[in-house]
């Protein structure tokens, strides 16, 4: 299975579209990038100057016994060294600067894009996967930009530069050396094909091993309770040994190829000695040229070896960027209208007008729902599991958009409001509140710095949340562990109610918790809810009769349809579903 996935990526490695898209991210830094390439060129030239200067020293000055000339060459050499140092240093910094900035841009874009996604996206994509995209994949891409791409450039420059110098020094000798290249090309091809296969298999084995390890660590308790340790160990060992054998295979190819380059290099030097030596004897060539040839040949094979290895970096970077782009290309489901109404929500009147909604095409979970909740009224929605209660809430918060019909707040259609504006005066208290790993104050005000500590304290006092906060060692500045594991269920609920209060909403949405807390905390929560509802329009997804009896209006949902709606008293008189429900309960 994993092997198939690996194969899939392999097919698309050569996708130039992806590659050119990566290059697009360099655009804001194109001048710097250009400068960096120029510096690279300069530093490659400086690298090449050494053997050439040695040649001049040997042929022009040592042979002629010119001491001052040697001084001159030494001085030039020093200058070249200083230049080379400056170029290389500046170039490395520059390239890293560009790479880091591109990474930052990409990360920002990914993060912002994730925030545009709708809830259904998060249901489908596990958190771990998204973290890998924004963190690890971006890092891999940086490696390619800063080391991969640059090294390839510099290797190519060096290669071309050396050939240029060699041709200039003696074209005949250069051509003779070229005899080695067909062999080199064959060896490289031979290696690349096999190494790629081995690497690909290796990668899929590593994934398999990691997956197995992760699963077993997560399910360790189960393994131990079922006394499965020995069998899991055997399974692990067999996966591990498959990985090892692929590892060794890749190693073998590498162990053959890399030394073979050295043999080719020596072959080239041998040719220089035999052919070049002969030429020297005939006076066709200078001694310094021979020495320079030998030194350049040593440098020539380095970039070739490098290029073969850089290939892998590029491959994994392209795979990473493909995954990032896939995420960035996931379209935003709910777009803000091009022209939004600036009108602010002041009163909190809610109206649903013939609203239809389906998550999957034509599979409607909300069917033709219409109702009005006036300013300051409270509505209790009741219904069985899956009747569409939560969907109704999601629609009101603009987390989804209805396919047909309209939702209005203060007579303004929701479709004309930006998401931000629509949600700005709504507070939603979730069934299972999420607590951030931060202190109490930050958990209540979230990112909103307009909410001062004083407001938070007075809100906490009025809801009774302060009872547990003041018992904490650092009170309001006390940090709560990740996912609020140090807070009890009841405390988390109180905290989220306080959060709702400090945002001072016009509309309050309350998803009543089904989980049971102890009797004392329960009455604290009930009191807090009563205070919170006062003077606001509220919609409560209710599970308890006591909560329902406190609401002005009742909406009864059945399989996505609104079967009954109205004032509490009217529904009782009507003797419909709601009446029967209450009757059934009391008769029990």
């Amino acid at each position, binding site marked *: 299975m994993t092997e198939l996935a690996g194969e899939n990526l392999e097919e698309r490695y050569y996708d130039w579209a992806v590659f050119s898209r990566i290059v697009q991210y360099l655009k804001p830094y194109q001048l710097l990038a250009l400068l960096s390439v120029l510096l690279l060129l300069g530093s490659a030239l400086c690298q090449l100057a050494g053997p050439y200067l040695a040649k001049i*020293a*040997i042929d022009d*000055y040592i042979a002629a016994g010119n001491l001052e000339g*040697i001084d001159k*060459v*030494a001085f030039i*050499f020093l200058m070249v060294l200083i230049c*080379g140092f400056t170029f290389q*240093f500046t170039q490395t*910094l520059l390239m*890293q*600067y560009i790479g880091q*900035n591109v990474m*930052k841009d990409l*990360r*920002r874009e990914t*993060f*912002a894009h*994730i*925030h545009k996604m709708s809830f259904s996206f998060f249901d489908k994509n596990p958190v771990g996967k998204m973290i890998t995209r924004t*963190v690890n994949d971006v890092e891999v891409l940086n490696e390619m930009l800063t080391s991969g791409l640059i090294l390839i450039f510099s290797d190519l420059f060096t290669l071309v530069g050396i050939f240029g110098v060699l041709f200039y020094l003696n074209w005949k000798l250069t051509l003779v050396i070229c005899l080695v290249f067909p062999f080199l090309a064959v060896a490289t091809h031979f290696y690349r094909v096999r190494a790629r296969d081995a690497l690909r298999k290796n990668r899929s084995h590593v994934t398999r*091993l990691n997956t197995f390890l*992760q699963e077993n*660590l997560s*399910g360790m*308790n*189960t393994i*131990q309770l079922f*006394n*499965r340790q020995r069998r899991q*160990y055997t399974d*692990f060992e067999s996966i*591990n*040994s498959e990985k*090892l054998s692929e590892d*060794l295979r890749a*190693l073998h190819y*590498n162990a053959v190829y*890399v030394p073979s380059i*050295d043999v080719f290099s*020596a072959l080239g*030097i*041998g040719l220089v*000695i*035999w052919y070049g030596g*002969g030429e020297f004897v005939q006076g066709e060539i200078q001694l310094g040229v021979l*020495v320079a040839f*030998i030194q350049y040949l040593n440098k020539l094979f380095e970039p070739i070896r490098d290029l073969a290895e850089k290939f892998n970096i590029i491959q994994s970077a392209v795979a990473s960027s493909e995954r990032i782009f896939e995420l960035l290309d996931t379209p935003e489901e709910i777009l803000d209208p091009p022209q939004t109404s600036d009108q602010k929500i002041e009163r909190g009147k809610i109206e649903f007008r013939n609203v239809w909604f389906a998550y999957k095409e034509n599979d409607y979970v909300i069917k033709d729902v219409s109702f009005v909740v006036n300013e300051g009224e409270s509505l209790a929605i009741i219904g*069985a599991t899956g*009747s569409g209660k939560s969907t109704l809430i999601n629609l009101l918060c603009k987390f989804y958009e209805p396919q047909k019909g309209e939702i209005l707040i203060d007579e303004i259609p929701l479709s004309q409001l930006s998401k931000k504006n629509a949600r700005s005066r*709504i507070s*939603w208290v*979730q069934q299972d509140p999420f607590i951030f790993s931060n202190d109490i104050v930050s958990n209540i005000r*979230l*990112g909103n710095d307009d909410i001062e500590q004083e407001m938070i304290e007075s809100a906490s006092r009025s809801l009774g949340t302060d009872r547990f906060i003041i018992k904490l060692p650092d009170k309001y500045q006390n940090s709560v562990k*990740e996912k609020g594991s140090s807070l009890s269920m009841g405390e988390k609920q109180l905290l989220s109610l306080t959060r709702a209060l400090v945002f001072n909403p016009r509309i309050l949405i309350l998803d009543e918790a089904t989980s*049971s807390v*102890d009797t004392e905390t329960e009455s604290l929560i009930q009191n807090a809810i009563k205070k919170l509802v006062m003077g606001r329009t509220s919609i409560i997804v209710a599970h308890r009769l006591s909560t329902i009896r406190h609401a002005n209006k009742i909406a009864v949902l059945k399989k996505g349809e609104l079967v009954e709606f109205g004032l509490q008293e009217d529904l009782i008189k009507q003797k419909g579903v709601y009446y029967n429900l209450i009757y*059934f309960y009391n008769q*029990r």
Partner: protein
Amino acid sequence: MFVSQLKVFISYLKAYRKEMLIGMVALILTDVVGLAIPWVLKQFIDKLPNKPSNEELLVFAGLLGLAATFQGLFRFGWRKYIFGPSRKVEFDIVNDLFGHFLKLDSSFYQKKKIGDLLSRATNDIRSVRDFLGLGLLVLADCFVVIISCFSLMIYISPKLTLMAFLPLPLISILFYLYTKKISEGHRIVQEELANISDMVQENLSGIRTLHAYVQEEKEKEKFEKQNEVYLSKNMALTKLYAIFPTSLSFFLGLATLISLWIGGKEVISGNLTLGSFVAFNGYLLMLSWPMMGIGYVFNLSQKGASAMKRVQDIFSEQPEIKSKLGIAPENDFKGELEFQSVSYRYSEQGFHLKDINLKIKPGQWMGVTGPIGAGKSTLFKFPLRVIDPTEGQIYLDGISINELPLELLRKQIGYVEQGPFLFSATIRENIVFGVELSDEKTIEEIAFLAGLEPDILAFPKGLDTMVGEKGVSLSGGQKQRIALARALIRKPKILILDDAFSSLDIETEEKILKNIRRVAQDTTVIMIAHRVSTQRYSDQIVVMENGRISGFGSREQLEAQDGYFKEISDAQSFQKGLEAFLS
């Protein structure tokens, strides 16, 4: 510290000492042959003014070719026989580590994040492997090359050697300063990256809350700030990374410059032959690799040392739950469970459970209920010895469970939790997870008992359908039923069902409860549940609140008195009414 850690890992190498020896010999031979090459060149150049014949030139070329071929062969030898064992050592360490993971218990897994463990088992072991293979190799290589190049250079010209090596102490000083700073910089960058990770993770987990309160922009601002910090820390590290290799090649260039300058004058004054001069330069060039190699080794050993420590940390962890050694008599257990003044505290004062006394008779159905966090799940993890109580004793058929080997104890108890862990294997493999072999008939029977029949019929490959990411994604209820089958197939004496039916609808639950009653009459059942309806067959019900037993009795008795049970019973019957009337 470092040395003692190194010892442990080097002991892994011992198993492959023969291969390592071959590799080392090959390495030394590679260097020796490598050193011969500039020497051949020296002879060649010194011979040139004497107008050598074509045959003589061919001999030189042939010698060089031969040397290079041998060098290639030896190089192949060490690559294979030094890198190979390092891979095998990695294999051994990973196996041992996994074996150790299997021994550690929940006290360990609660403190550690899976991601961290995973990175130790993969990235850290890779660093150790690189250090043991590549690191030690490069170290040996550098040693041989430096010593021999140095000696040969002194042989050629002591004066020139001294001069050319003048800039080298500078490299060492630079190097020393550099390595100190770089590991620090690395740590900081890693921390900042972890901060970014954490932020993304929290943002995603709490995305509903953030969006409901319109905090996207604020979060983006925070993220941007974090991103800036990361960038600046990274640039600081980059400066270090940029300065080192650049200065290194600068100083090496300086050495070459000196050798050219001074050496050139020596040739002119006749103190040095041209061939020696070229050979000297050749050796100097050969030295550039070991100079950088030392930097590389240092880097590897820095990483390797911290990685070794992180791996060692795990190896030095011991399970808190100790199994009774030896083999207890293969009792035929009846399934009586008794808790005697059991307490569990998480701090000096803080009790999670306090003084619980409870006796459950063989074959009895004991219901347990209470609010979240009352301590129900913790209490019934004790009999399995997932954790041990701080105080008190637990007895199985009158024998203290601490006196029983873990394997024997756990064999007697079937355990199903609310969100059970299933492995990404077929449904069949998941069901037979805890038994050696089971015939088709038994598996089908058990699947039927656990109410899985309709699901299996609907799955594309029936029992052989893959579960999890690679196969069908299961609903909570399906997972719970597979986990039930997995527990039932072991025919336990005691069955602990910890909210194990929470995702099932009432009818399915009813059917399964009846099935269990029918086939497992002698089994003691402990039924932890929030739903009152799940307790319909419970002989007795324990109500737990705040770590204590607050009520005890039959369902009818408890419903008659004010308290937690009556309250939830009322609330749930309303809910039941809702479901009945509205679906």
